[in-house]
């Protein structure tokens, strides 16, 4: 959608806009490109100041890719990340979506906005503060270093967020179809399950991707609450510094592997994304 300001803009200001946007794009992409370049270097080449272009400045090698991909620990960590992130997403949706729907559609003694704000305020607790109680709780239930333990913690942190986002999405959906279904004799549960949920599919997908990405990228709890079996990829990346220092080429491979899954999901949902991130501040 083109803005009238753009239609009326002079040639010079249009060039300026493109210049600034290109600058922003380059600034954003450059680190990714650099990680790709470094990932095909030998350790020695990573310390060469002028080694920018593969084949021209240095001979590329897949050595560090081989090293990471053939490391059973890295593969296991990647798998853990997938399981934990998916598990958390599913659990958060099961608990959060009905609550969000309820807040969007029904009246409560406490205003729905206040409940939503209270949900959001849970984000204020610094993670390092709640680390100890969760650590001890997981020790008690023998859930340290397990997927279930991590899913439990991450669900708790992401639930509030998901409720607030989904509430806005349900609010945006016209209730006409739901009213029609009511006239047809559908009960409240059928309306929620068969009418409202399918209509909110975009929002569900956006919420899922956000929860997945937050879980995937979290490192503090992941490294404190796991030691070996359930270590996630982010925890592995965090630990790699103390175990082996920073080998640029291996660090770059790890970076790329760690970044790719949530970013790919982002490409698929970005069309709907902005809608989910406004936390009710936009009344559409």
């Amino acid at each position, binding site marked *: 959608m083109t803005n009238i300001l753009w239609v009326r803009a002079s040639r010079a200001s249009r060039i300026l806009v493109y210049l600034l946007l290109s600058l922003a794009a380059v600034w954003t992409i450059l*680190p990714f490109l*650099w990680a790709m370049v470094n990932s095909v270097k030998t350790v020695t080449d990573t310390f060469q100041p002028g080694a920018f272009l593969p084949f021209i400045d240095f001979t590329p090698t897949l050595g560090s890719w081989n090293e990471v991909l053939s490391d059973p620990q890295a593969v296991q960590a990647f798998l853990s990340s997938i399981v934990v992130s998916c598990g958390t997403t599913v659990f958060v949706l099961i*608990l959060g979506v009905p609550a969000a729907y*309820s807040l969007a559609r029904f009246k409560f003694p406490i205003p729905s906005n206040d409940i939503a704000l209270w949900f959001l305020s849970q984000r*204020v607790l*610094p993670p390092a503060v709640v680390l100890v*109680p969760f650590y001890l709780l997981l020790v008690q239930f023998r859930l340290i270093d397990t997927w279930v333990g991590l899913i439990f913690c991450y669900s708790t942190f992401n639930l509030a967020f998901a409720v607030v986002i989904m509430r806005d999405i349900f609010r945006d959906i016209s209730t006409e179809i739901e009213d029609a279904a009511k006239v047809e004799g559908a009960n409240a549960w059928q309306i929620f399950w068969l009418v409202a949920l399918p209509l909110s599919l975009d929002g569900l997908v956006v919420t899922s991707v956000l929860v997945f*990405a937050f879980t995937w990228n979290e490192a503090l709890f992941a490294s404190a609450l796991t030691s070996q079996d359930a270590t996630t990829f982010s925890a592995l990346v965090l630990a790699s510094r103390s175990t082996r220092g920073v080998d640029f080429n291996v660090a770059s491979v790890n970076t790329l592997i760690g970044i790719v899954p949530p*970013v790919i999901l982002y490409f698929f949902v970005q069309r709907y994304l902005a809608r989910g991130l406004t936390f009710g501040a936009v009344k559409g």
Partner: protein
Amino acid sequence: MAEARAGRAEYGARFKYALLLPAVLWVVAFTFFPLFSVLRYSFASYVLGRGITGYVGFANYIQVLHSDRFWHSIMVTAIYVAVSVPIEVVLGFLAAWLVNLGPSGAKGFRTVIGAPLFTMEVAIGYLGVTLFSSQGGLYATLLAHIGISIPWLSSPAGGLAAAILLDIWRWTSFVFLIVLAGLGSINSELYDAAVLDARNHWQVMWRLAIPLAWPVTTIAILLRTIECLKVFAIPFALTTGGPGTSTEVFSSTDYLTTIQFFDFGKGSAMGIIFLIMVSAIITLFFRQMRRSLA
């Protein structure tokens, strides 16, 4: 008839609570429980393997308040937040404004500029090492070519600056996406009217877009401030707080106190003090923003 309606209303009431309560109970249980638990530990002396060995009153608090490392981490966090959040908000707003103008290729720009929000922060911290290291780091090398040499990772100021630059790289996308949604919801007729009245482009932005996008922007500022105060992964992965502990943010100090040294009492007291400070800031800030909104 009336009976049936009453029955339905009751069913409705039960239904809405049935949907809401599991989530509410979950959040209540697992946010109050850790809070009380942390409070208890903050007054206890904790020995690894033996648990709480006794209660020591405010001794943990006094120790924390006398700890230079704690205050230093607070100062570093304050600088970190005070520098990165405003820059992220301004850059994010500007980028959103430019993309919202709708030049051709706007969708491509949106995709690229929004992407960093989905990247793993620890990984970005490591990536930062390969960018800022004086031995083969991309930015360090490029800057050296034009005669600028900054000791990014070997000096306190450089380390903090590098971490802040990475934070800006990672989080400007968040403000960008939120503000873009806000700008997108402005009715295009309002632009038409504003263009007639305003003398130039900046006036349109200043008089129309900023006031209308202010509600979403305040949400972005608030969330960004809260998250930034909790910052851990980027600076920790980039410098592990070094050289020494000179760039250690609060979350790193608390993390190392509790998990590395297993000093749960002191770590908890630290957390409570921080929580009080953060809540005070957030409350003041939120009230101020509400006022400027009205």
